[in-house]
């Protein structure tokens, strides 16, 4: 069974994002970039499936700038077999990403695509769902547990209010949530081996996908500074405040 794992290069989760002076977006100059943490979880899931004998090959894809090659290398060091870099310096919105991934999934004949449920830069939470729709496949989103058995995937989903377990037919698209697993760090020998694994370089044009953005960013602003809270003496006072001042109960 072939597994496709898309990974995105994003601003590192430890970095405090700053808005560019002109408000056109987040300042990424000289900022540490890393693999989207949700994607690390997807890679880990794929590698575990390979170790368990369920998956036979793991193909890592990234759509982004030349430096995204390093994000692919990180995934290869974790256990991916080979990579595809679809190189572009433009912003690529979820729909364009899904269109490119659709073609790659078909060309590769991948049985399962495992994606992060969202990327921590724009938090769209759309690509996996769009991809499933474009492919006409089942989808199992927000996975916190995945079991593959007899041509089906049993996926536990983290939904509002609890856990939901669904069974979907393969081929399918899975998006992963934070609690699915604890991604491994690459060992030094695997980092070295990853340097020798092949990465194909492509462009969006190779797939005939027009990636021109359909959304226009009007402005980007820093979140409002948190103001100090208040301490209440009693439950009664809290209830009174919630009722009279906040008007929420």
């Amino acid at each position, binding site marked *: 069974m072939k597994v496709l794992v898309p990974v995105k290069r994003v601003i590192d989760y430890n970095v405090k994002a700053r808005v560019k002076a002109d408000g056109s977006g987040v300042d990424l100059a*000289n*900022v*540490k970039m890393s693999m989207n943490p949700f994607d690390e979880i997807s890679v880990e899931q794929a590698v575990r499936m390979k170790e368990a004998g369920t998956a036979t090959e793991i193909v890592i894809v990234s759509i982004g700038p030349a430096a995204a090659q390093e994000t692919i290398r990180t995934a290869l060091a974790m256990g991916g077999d080979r990579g595809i870099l679809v190189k572009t310096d433009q912003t690529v919105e979820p729909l364009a990403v899904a269109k490119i991934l659709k073609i790659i999934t078909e060309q590769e004949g991948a049985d399962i695509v495992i994606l992060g449920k969202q990327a921590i830069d724009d938090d769209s939470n759309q690509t996996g769902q769009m991809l499933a729709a474009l492919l006409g496949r089942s989808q199992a989103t927000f996975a916190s547990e995945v079991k593959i058995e007899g041509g089906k995937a049993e996926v536990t989903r983290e939904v509002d209010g609890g856990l939901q377990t669904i069974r979907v037919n393969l081929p399918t698209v899975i998006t992963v949530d934070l609690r699915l697993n604890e991604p491994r*760090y690459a*060992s030094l*020998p695997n980092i070295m081996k990853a340097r020798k694994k092949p990465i194909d370089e492509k462009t969006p044009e190779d797939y005939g996908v027009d990636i021109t953005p359909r959304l226009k960013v009007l402005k980007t602003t820093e979140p409002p500074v948190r103001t100090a809270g208040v301490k209440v003496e009693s439950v009664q006072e809290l209830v009174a405040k919630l009722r009279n001042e906040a008007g929420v109960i």
Partner: protein
Amino acid sequence: MNAESNLDVEDPQITQIRQSVIALCGNFPGEYWRDLDQKREYPTAFVRALTEAGFLAVLIPEEYGGSGLGLTAAAAVLEEIQRSGCNGAACHAQMYIMGTILRHGSAEQKARWLPRIASGELRLQAFGVSEPSNGTDTLSLKTRAVRQGDHYIVNGQKIWTSRAEHSDLMLLLARTTPKEEAKSRSHGLSVFVVDMQKAVGNGMTIKPIRTMINHSTTQVFFDDMKVPAENLLGEEGQGFKYILTGMNAERVLIGAETIGDARWFIKKAVDYANGRNVFGGPISKNQGIQFPIAKAYAQTEAANLMVQKAARLYEQGKDIGAEANMAKMLAAEASWAAADMCLQTHGGYGFAEEYDVERKLRETRLYQIAPISTNLILSYLAEHVLGMPRSY
């Protein structure tokens, strides 16, 4: 922080190594180290994780089961360990002591030890040089090894032999020709690989020394300890020269560790200063708080340039006596300045163990004394680089 920006220009493989080490160290937070520090216990789980991930075999050639990378990669590993708040002192020597076997051992000796050192099955991380009676004056060391048939008989004592209780092999420097009979001042010392598993209780006694840090350091006594002649490295009498080459790599790596420490202190200070509100605002808005942090940052970046330069030159096979010494001195001074600044920034809270500042401060202080103290580095530069008379 801008310290991150130099990650972008470095070899991507090194960047990836850094990221992986950071991820590994994430499993060993402050509480882990505080607990061990209190009990003066060895960080076994941490060392096992580093070993299993192959990071301690970074410098061992691929043919012997290591990764065959250069000093820059090893420096990156140690820097990130320290920067993550961990302490590489428990095992840094496993990385570099084997260099003496690699450079001066016979083909047989290399095949016998290196693969098992690379896998971690054998720990070669005890380095017996220092002795109580002679201090930094290594050539005056008293431990004697006398050849008898196919063995050497060793008598004497080492002090500050760190990790001896957590090591399978020891690299031992002992005198084989009495000083008076030696051909020259630096002749007459020899290097042995001692199988400690066999030696303890058979002529070798280890006594731990309690110190201000959790460093597993010891005194080692030799009483007619037998070492097979086949464990002699290189030629008899040439040991001092062999040890010196290894020391340059060690100094660069210790330099990298203290750069990591300095970065830990700086980040810790910035975070604390931004979050601590006194007089109606964060203390970080005062220049009296900002400037010492900024200064520590500048000092660290400058010292790091020397560490990186020394590592690069070493990889090119150059003699880096001066650069290795300067790198270690500048970086250890930068980390100490950063430690002092960090404690001051924390005010009273810096004294509380749970902030880890006092622990890291104690730990980083060592490196102005070991493996070589600052005065001796300055003497070296004065004599060998600047052409002034030998002062000692």
